[in-house]
């Protein structure tokens, strides 16, 4: 299995607090992605990165920011969490943009 670790695996927090999710890879893949998964919506791309300090927005980027200061780490930040951001968040990696993605086990985030 591809070496992808998401942390934390579960988090409960309150509306208005900042939250940072971490994705760590050991594969040295260039591309890293953050998705959210909600019932009836499949996976929706939040942000992705195509290299250190190179990121781009996905279809649901509002309210989220990302950073990638090292090849192996991709951080997703909710600056001021809202209840609508309660979801399961998945990180994925791929060697190239057209290659299959390898997924982490997800982070279940609940915002009360």
């Amino acid at each position, binding site marked *: 299995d591809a070496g992808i670790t998401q942390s934390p695996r579960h988090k409960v927090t309150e509306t208005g607090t900042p939250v940072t999710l971490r994705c760590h890879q050991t594969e040295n893949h260039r*591309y890293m992605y953050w998705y959210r998964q909600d019932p009836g919506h*499949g996976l929706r791309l939040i942000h992705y990165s195509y290299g250190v300090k190179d990121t781009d927005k996905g279809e649901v980027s509002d309210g989220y920011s990302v950073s990638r200061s090292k090849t192996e780490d991709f951080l997703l930040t909710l600056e001021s969490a809202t209840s609508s951001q309660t979801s399961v968040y998945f990180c994925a990696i791929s060697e190239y943009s*057209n290659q299959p993605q*390898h*997924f982490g086990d*997800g982070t279940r985030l609940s915002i009360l």
Partner: protein
Amino acid sequence: AQSVTQPDIHITVSEGASLELRCNYSYGATPYLFWYVQSPGQGLQLLLKYFSGDTLVQGIKGFEAEFKRSQSSFNLRKPSVHWSDAAEYFCAVAARGTNAGKSTFGDGTTLTVKP
């Protein structure tokens, strides 16, 4: 913009029966196409992919898919379903060119297998 439609939200089949999960895509050129499977509490795992060439692709766990350009479809099939195949299945399309990196996933099809 690219899009993916999985028309069936939920499918139930008997163990040993054949399976076909539908996927329709919208994209201006020949896309990269993928099928993934997700078991409860897990991330997604790649079943198979189509890039170019032979339109019938083989994947893991006995799955196959056929790319039909004229129908903009990439349906997943398995001749005989096992109880362990019960899971959620996602079709995905990856863009080429300037939008490389922006993959789009369908909403998923949940497969239930009856004994």
